[in-house]
């Protein structure tokens, strides 16, 4: 018999799974145009899997959308396209045309500027143009202090703005999903999952994830104390940059010049779970865009960032 803690973990996963599927079904039942935002990362891959379970044996009753900044790791795009084929889930891709026309890249702009244009604005436009009334994302409360404060169903005023001081109360399985003109909803079915829950669920359900989550020798440069992987020849090296091979993995995946890797020897899901069980740092420590000011995530969310 497995140890007690393993049984407990499995029960926790069942309860979290039930909650997430409930939320996904609410999105389908109470809204007219739901969209699931797929970011290719482990959380949104788990979320997409949950959505398939929620509506099996039928197809997903909503659009799946990837907001592509064009600066994702090559492995991520390959993974996205393969998953879309194998799971038979069409994934719509949206990119802010301003990126190409105004040459907005992580190298030409500050990370705040770049994130605002290529992520926040791109997302807002995609949501408005698609006429989506609920956008479903894989954000978790344990990721970050302002996320810990957010509701599972989180109202956005016209212009996709979040007002953290006036969130709707949320009770039991009776959320208030009524929308006034201009308002939209964000739904976070994984709100109560931790990073470890997501990995344990990936192991239990036998899900594949982007290979970048596993440790491998990769070409890297240092930026301060952060390890940055040189993913393709668009990477602009500074004159004193030394590209060296390090065995690293990612805890979180974003745009490649803005995601820091960690030295690790975890080459399997089991290894990752063991590594996280011993870890005392949080996952978003590797996100360069979060580090700017203690309320950076909250400020971005108020503007409409996921």
């Amino acid at each position, binding site marked *: 018999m497995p140890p007690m803690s393993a049984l*407990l973990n*499995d029960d926790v996963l069942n309860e979290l799974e039930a909650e997430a599927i409930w939320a996904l*079904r609410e999105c389908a039942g*109470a809204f007219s145009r739901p969209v699931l935002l797929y970011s290719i990362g482990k959380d949104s891959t788990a979320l997409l899997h949950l959505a398939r379970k929620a509506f099996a044996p039928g197809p997903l009753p909503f659009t799946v959308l990837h907001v592509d900044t064009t600066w994702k790791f090559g492995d991520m795009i390959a993974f996205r396209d393969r998953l879309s084929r194998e799971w038979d889930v069409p994934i719509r891709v949206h990119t802010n045309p301003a990126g190409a026309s105004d040459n907005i890249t992580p190298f030409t702009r500050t990370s705040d500027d770049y994130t605002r244009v290529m992520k926040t604005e791109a997302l807002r436009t995609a949501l408005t143009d698609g006429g989506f009334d609920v956008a479903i994302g894989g954000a978790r409360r344990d990721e970050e202090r302002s996320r*810990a404060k957010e509701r599972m169903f989180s109202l956005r005023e016209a212009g996709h703005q979040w007002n953290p001081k006036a969130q*709707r*109360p949320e009770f*039991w399985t009776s959320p208030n999903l009524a929308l006034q003109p201009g308002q939209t909803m964000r739904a976070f079915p994984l709100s109560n999952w931790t990073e470890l829950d997501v990995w344990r669920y990936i192991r239990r359900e036998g899900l594949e994830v982007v290979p970048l989550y596993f440790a491998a020798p990769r070409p890297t440069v240092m930026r301060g104390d952060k390890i940055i992987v040189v993913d393709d020849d668009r990477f602009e090296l500074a004159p004193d940059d030394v590209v060296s091979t390090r065995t690293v993995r990612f805890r979180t995946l974003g745009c490649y010049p803005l995601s820091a890797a960690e030295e690790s020897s975890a080459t399997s899901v089991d290894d990752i779970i063991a590594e996280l069980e011993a870890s005392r740092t949080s996952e978003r420590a590797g996100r360069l865009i979060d580090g700017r000011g203690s309320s950076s995530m909250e400020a971005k969310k108020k503007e409409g960032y996921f």
Partner: protein
Amino acid sequence: MTSSPSQSHPLVRVVFCGAVDDGKSTLLGHLLYGTDTATLDEISFVSSSDAIDGKLDYSLFVDGLESEREQGITIDVAHRTLTLESGQRLQLLDSPGHAQYTRNMAVAAASADIAVLVIDATRGIRDQSLRHALIAQLMGVRHIVVALNKLDAVDDVARAVTSVTAEFTERLTAMTHRNVAEDASATVTVVALSGRTGANVIDVEPSFPAGEWPTLYAALEGLSADVRASRSESDGNAPFRMSVQFVNRLERTRRYLGRLSGRAPEVGTHVTVFPSGESAHIVDVGWASNRSVGSPVSIELDREIDISRGDVIVEAAAYASLPVFQGFLADVVCLSPDGITLGQTYSLMSGPLELPCHIDVTRYTVDPETGEQVVGQPLGVNDIARVEVSTSRPIALTTFSESRETGGFIIVNRATGETVGVGMNRAGITRKSDVTRHAFTLNRQTRERATGIRGCVLWVTGLPGCGKSTLANALEVELFHQGVHTVILDGDTIRQTLSEDLGFSPEDRSENVRRVSRVAQLLLDTGCVVIVTLVSPYRDDRALARGLFADGDFIEVFVDTPVEVCAERDPKGLYARATQDPTMNLTGVTSPYETPESPELHIDGTAPVPESLARLMAVVTNRRAN
């Protein structure tokens, strides 16, 4: 079947509550820090922030919003996960103490199993402490841990604890006795500690009297084991019941999705649907992982029945004992700064169910200082009251003590979308199920299949003279040529017949709308297209009419014509008469018309008739019978 020997629902939820500045966030922060739950980057963030007397400000671990850190108070609930050494997983909910944010405290208490009520031992008990204790108990929290805090600032700890505990117990008992139903499993545990120094939070404080009080950690460990044990007893012995969240229309069949309540259904289980009363057998059941209460389930039936979101599917044998009521006695916490207005139409939402409701009567509000029941008070923000609620049609709500999920509801302002109250159903009071309808052989679905078109109610509203009747007439002629059955309920005809006893006061207009909507409901059962042409100037009345129908069956058509144009057309000479007689009650001139906010169809009353007709036709003919 799952053969796992473990129990379901392993998560235990703990709300930290109490009055503002009594140290909830600091205590919770210390618990996270002391159990190594806080991450290193959080610790470095907290250490780099302004420290108090060179010590960590533990509240910063949970006060995650900018405005919270600026004001030094908690505004909204923080959700944190804590895993105890036993492997037990706790979700810790930090809630605001400030009266202005009581609604957020209620959110945290609603799902909690244990409430840690933090009281500043140097200040004593405040109204807000008792208000939180009462809210927690009314919302079904069985275990209260009274955490007497800031004992590092007290000389004689034992004396302080004894005196505060005595006063609290006396006041809580008085309040509970009057306002909360008896519950033998309810417990109150006292812990004495300091969130600032960490004394008795995780480790026993050696300077406190030995063995007197458990640490907070030990208290949570003990209680969470009790919570788990009591849950496993109650799970899954009741008949199968599921509220339909979503109907998945697949190529050849329909699947009904929801959350399991009661026993797991199986292929062959005979079920009945509320409110239609139709029965069928289950031919397929889908599960996500396990089959305990709350698990996602999807079912397919052996015959097609009209089932919508919010309907309830139960084991056929249990249908007769389904608690069906149209009026309820409930405890309500008022969450809106504007209060709750008696008699106003609100939406009641409970799970996937949504329908119009009223609060008819306030039996009493509770004075949080004394627990006394005060009669005759309006329902103001943060008030806790016992009320009578009525809904536009009978619904199957359980009592809150049977299930929080199916016995709890929220009250929403229909115009603003604001959640104005949260309610706990205590008992049904008006039963409309005493009259059982005869099951006639021919039903709506059979008749609709004969014409190929799904019937509906087109509720055509607008000012007198806006063109309602003209459009209705044109539509009926067109549908007649296509073999679709129609009937027109025209305001003027109704006024001369069914409603000949009514005048034009707001009350009489409402009653007129009620009668017409009930007749429309009867006619819809014939599977025809019911065209109602009625000024119906009040939003609430139209909302009540809408509430009688299933989703999609009620189609509000707003014929939008400027009042000047109507007055110029004046087919019945009403506007001309109104200018002669200022006492005449004419909508748009001397009495108000409340414009529909989101009608299904918004028609420009000055557009050519063929254009508007085409839009109406499209709506009707797109509805194929199934």
